[in-house]
């Protein structure tokens, strides 16, 4: 909280002279898959204020924060100030630096991108706008760009994890020490003759999603669980260390854009002996966007997650491979009418997530959105465990 206040004070003083812009969005989310069919009603009013100020020809400061009035699940209503982004930036001819709190999305595929691991997710705020369900990161971004190559390095001193609707109050969050600084690097380029864009990624840090461990087992912190303990042990949520090496490609062919993305994740359980920690794995996605007609774009992709150190004798929970199929459709017959549908199907456990919405711009700057996010599947499957959080939502957004 202290760093949030400091950032706000620092940037607000510079930005007070600028003309603010942003939006006010009010939404109502109805839980529709509970036993009594109306599991919950969440309401919120989000006012986002964005401030931007040029500092000379190459510098700028940006501050963006939310005033969020929210009634979430069964909690009492709250008014929160949430920093969305707050950073200073210098962009020279080739060299750039950005420091503060910012977003950095990696990869080519929304929702299922293996390399998009810098920004944590906020699964409690799913809506039509991506900034509602992603969390920006504190860091320093150094970049270098030339005609043929772009390089970026992110140094992230404060760990932030994803937020899920389920209670994970027993989490163990890493301390803010020098040795805990996360590093993310990206190298990008284009093979001009054929129009092939490529990116290489490296990340050394911690998983944004928790693994579960016994904090005080008899044989060490991360020892495998064997036998039946005499008393049920306390389980903690633990954000394990991981290293990621990734790559992606995209190339347009006629009205198709082909995309391929893959990454290798080296997790803490390097030998695959601990059933509570995710084993090292490859994650690959391939697919295409197809402009069927100028107003309709269809995207199809297939994702394979394959554990490289899978030991069937020890790990009886999962499978060596997980296969996903994704489908997305965007139809915009008019600039004021927009329909989108994104669906992910986990082929092995037959669970599904579906997000769809239709937005109508009533007049310029005022948009009404109706949408749904639904989860299907048996208990404890990839998406089935979120079934009770399925919802329909209505949003009204006014921009200023």
């Amino acid at each position: 909280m202290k760093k949030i206040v400091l950032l706000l004070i620092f940037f607000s003083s510079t930005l007070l002279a600028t003309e603010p812009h942003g939006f006010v969005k009010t939404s109502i989310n109805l839980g529709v898959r509970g036993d009594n069919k109306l599991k919950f009603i969440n309401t919120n009013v989000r006012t986002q204020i964005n401030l931007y100020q040029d500092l000379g020809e190459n510098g700028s400061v940006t501050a963006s924060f939310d005033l969020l009035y929210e009634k979430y699940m069964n909690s009492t209503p709250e008014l929160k100030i949430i920093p969305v982004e707050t950073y200073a930036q210098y962009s020279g001819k080739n060299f750039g630096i950005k420091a503060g709190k910012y977003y950095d999305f990696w990869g080519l595929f929304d929702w299922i991108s293996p390399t998009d691991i810098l920004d944590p997710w906020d699964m409690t705020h799913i809506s039509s706008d991506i900034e509602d369900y992603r969390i920006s990161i504190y860091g320093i971004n150094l970049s270098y760009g030339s005609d043929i190559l772009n390089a970026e390095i992110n140094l992230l001193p404060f760990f932030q994890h994803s937020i899920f609707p389920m209670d994970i109050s027993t989490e163990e969050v890493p301390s803010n020490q020098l040795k805990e600084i996360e590093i993310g690097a990206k190298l990008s380029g284009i093979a001009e003759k054929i129009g092939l864009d490529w990116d290489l990624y490296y990340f050394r840090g911690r998983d944004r999603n928790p693994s579960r461990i016994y904090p005080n087992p008899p044989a060490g912190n991360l020892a495998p669980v064997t036998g039946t303990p005499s008393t049920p042990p306390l389980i903690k949520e633990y954000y394990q260390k991981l290293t990621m090496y990734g790559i992606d490609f995209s190339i347009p062919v006629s009205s198709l854009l082909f995309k391929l993305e893959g990454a290798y994740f080296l997790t803490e359980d390097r030998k695959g002996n601990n059933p509570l920690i995710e084993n090292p794995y490859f994650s690959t996605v391939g697919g295409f966007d197809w402009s069927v007609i100028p107003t309709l774009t269809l995207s199809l992709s297939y994702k394979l997650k394959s554990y490289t150190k899978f030991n069937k004798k020890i790990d009886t929970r999962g499978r060596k491979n997980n296969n996903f199929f994704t489908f997305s459709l965007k139809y915009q017959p008019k600039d004021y009418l927009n329909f989108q549908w994104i669906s992910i199907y986990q082929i092995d456990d037959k669970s599904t997530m579906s997000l769809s919405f239709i937005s109508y711009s009533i007049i310029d700057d005022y948009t009404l959105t109706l949408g749904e996010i639904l989860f299907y599947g048996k208990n404890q499957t990839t998406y089935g465990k979120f079934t009770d959080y399925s919802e329909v939502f209505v949003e009204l957004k006014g921009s200023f």
Partner: protein
Amino acid sequence: MKWEKFSIVVSAVLFLTGFTRGQDMRDFMAKVFRQSTWNSMSADMTLTIIDSREEKRIREVKFFSKKDKNGNNRMLMKFIRPREVMGTSFLLLEHKNREDDRYLYLPALRRVKRIVASGKKGNFMSSDFTYYDIGEPKPDDFKYKYLDEEEFKGVKCIKVEATPASERVLNDTGYSKIIYWVDPEKKIILKAEYYDDRGKLQKILNINEHKLINGVYFATDIVMKDVQINHISRIKFTNIKINEKMPERYFSVKHLRRR
């Protein structure tokens, strides 16, 4: 006096006879297109879209365009209005021998996304203009035929019919025919009719104003009406700079994020 009249008539006959030959007509239209072609251009653009219920929607964009070393067009647009899309940027890099590259920076996503090309017949900013309409015309994409003369807005114009030179052009543009009204003196287009791939009149273009800037006749007020759906789009340019110095980095993916 008689000789003067006679020479005018002879000249006119020769002029028109010349135009009946396809190659001459092609060369004439190449000159017309060249008159309105720039190496680099920046301007503030206001696009007004009026639908069949006469409801208006206004978009304001900062527009930059520059040719690369191979003569390919590059186009950068930064959206200012409506506020909802403020900060959105669009980069179009044309290529002669392969698909165009299109990149979109959406401030909500904070990410540059490479987007799939919808072809030249895709609507530009959901208006009645297509990407082909706003791009630099390529004389060899069409075959030209002189039709006749017709007065338009007090100017005795030459009417020229353009038909696609190949199936590819027909598919790319969606036009089976374009008829131009050309001011033969200034060699600028004042009006055009666009016929869809079934041969039906689809759109009418009126250019209300040209300004001569740095040797280029620049259309500053353009109205396109889709007569099939009764939909109108008007583009007005202000603060126009032609063939002035423009940094190369404007047309890089990295620059899209900058305001």
